[in-house]
């Protein structure tokens, strides 16, 4: 008796849906509409494309900005939810709401709250005297990306909190006790007891956030479609536009292949940086 018959159906489905398209992407990217081999012409066209550099920069900006705040705020929330206080169970459930809400719903509700004329956010800020006049959160080219990052942080910090919480629950109680005997403050406890213990959790969570961030399209596409003036054009939206609005499948395939490699490089750099850090005392 062997396990092969058990795993074969699932592997076959995944191979059909993943392995085959990955290979097919490579084939498409070096051919033209007639199926003739054209070498690297599609890649050259993409690299020379006016919007490619913009899309790469926007993607890095969006992913980097999102991760920093997601990890910091998520860790704080996770530590908070691990404290002893009344109503903790209720707050643990509430904290998951942003993560549970569909991405499209997060997009529409924030788009409405951040509406320049009728949004509640601008009303609160102007009536509170924080800003003089309404801010174009989703229309001002310089503000729209930070606004989208904020929405993305709101959406995913609960996931970080959940994972940090799970990690903290495995921390032996004696560690806290001995820290307290040594007169550690709450800040010391976070720095010297909690963070070192949840470090592996944070590493894998950051990796996941990176991949999700690279893939993020729902919120950005729904709210801005990549605008204004391409300021929120990230790579997935660029690929979508090339393929399904410009119908340039072969260039889109070259772009996909470059995106694929770009993602791998980012992930590799991250793992490498982490492994290097791990070596130090």
């Amino acid at each position, binding site marked *: *008796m*062997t*396990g*092969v018959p*058990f*795993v074969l*159906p*699932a*592997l076959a*489905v*995944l191979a059909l*849906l*993943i392995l*085959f*398209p*990955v290979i097919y*992407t490579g084939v*498409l990217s070096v051919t033209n509409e007639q199926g003739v081999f054209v070498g690297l012409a599609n890649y050259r066209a993409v690299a020379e494309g006016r919007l490619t550099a913009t899309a790469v920069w926007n993607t890095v900006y969006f992913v980097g900005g999102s991760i920093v705040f997601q990890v910091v705020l998520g860790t704080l*929330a996770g530590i*908070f939810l691990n*404290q002893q*206080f009344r109503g903790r169970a209720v707050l643990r459930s*509430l904290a*998951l*709401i942003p993560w*549970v809400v*569909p*991405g*499209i*719903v*997060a997009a*529409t*509700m924030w*788009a*409405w*709250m951040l509406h320049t004329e*009728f949004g*509640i956010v601008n*009303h609160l800020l102007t009536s509170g005297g924080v800003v003089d006049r309404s801010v174009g959160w989703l229309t001002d080219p310089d503000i729209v990306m930070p606004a989208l990052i904020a929405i993305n942080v709101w959406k995913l910090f609960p996931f970080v909190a*959940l994972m940090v919480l*799970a990690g903290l629950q495995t921390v032996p109680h004696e560690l806290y006790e001995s820290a307290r005997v040594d*007169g550690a403050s709450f*800040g010391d406890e976070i720095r010297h007891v909690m963070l070192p213990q949840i470090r592996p959790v944070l590493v894998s969570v950051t990796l996941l956030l990176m*991949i999700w961030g690279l*893939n993020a*399209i*729902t919120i950005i*596409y729904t709210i801005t479609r990549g605008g204004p003036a391409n300021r929120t054009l990230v*790579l*997935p939206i660029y*690929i*979508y536009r090339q*393929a*399904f609005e410009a119908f340039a*499948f072969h260039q*889109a395939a070259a772009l*996909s*292949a470059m*995106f*694929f490699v770009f993602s791998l490089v980012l992930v590799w750099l991250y793992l490498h940086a982490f492994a290097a850090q791990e070596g130090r005392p």
Partner: protein
Amino acid sequence: MTRGRATFFVAAGVLAIPAVCLFPFLWMGLSSLKSARELYAVPPTWLPHAPTLENYRTVLFESNVPRYFLNSVIISLGSTGLALGLAIFASYGFARFEFAGKRASQAFVLAAQLLPTSAIIVPLFITLRVLGLVNTYLGLILVYMILTLPLSVWMLTSYFRAIPVELEEAAIIDGASRAAVLFRVTLPLSLPGLVAVVVYAFVTTWNEFIFALVFAQDSRVKTLPIGIAEFTGEFNTDWGAVMAASLVMTLPIVLLFFGMQRLFVGGLTAGAIKG
């Protein structure tokens, strides 16, 4: 020993978490009950002065949302069922047997989970078009395996591993077949893991946007996220209807999630951390 900072930290969290997590949701609910006149009033009103179900009437009787809701239910249930079926067998194979290529297969499943989906959307579309599966339920159900199957296999494998193999051996000595062991002994003991997979797969497919946008271009198979995006896509966004439709879409997810939360969160973290 001062615990003052910890107290302050907890107090800040008790205030901030509900405000940050709940307010947008609350505002969506309140907005969905306002008339157009009130929605576009400056300054905005907090509570609706004259609550109305007009927006829900628009969404339920004058739009495609009911049809999209049905499509979403069919596609989500279909892909959840298929992912669960495939994952049960695959996970059992990974958890209980040694065979050539096992490590490579498991690495492939893990890598599949990390794959950037936008990178394969073009060839996937061409493949589906050749197979005649664009704009069909089956096409979307299959494509959603990319999103749900890898993590489902991963979660269930760690669940099956945790079940003492002696229980199964006892059943085999009593003359039970492998299939009987799997369905009568292992699965009943893995109920939390199975629930986690079902909730995860259902929520993921219910919320999915970009595959639906590409592979469902016909209103006969379009899902709810696309329906809501259509509402906002036009120049005159009917924000009241958008809020009502968003709420209609969120409700099943919230009910499902909080109904099974204990089981789901346990199963997910077990798969993610111990796995």
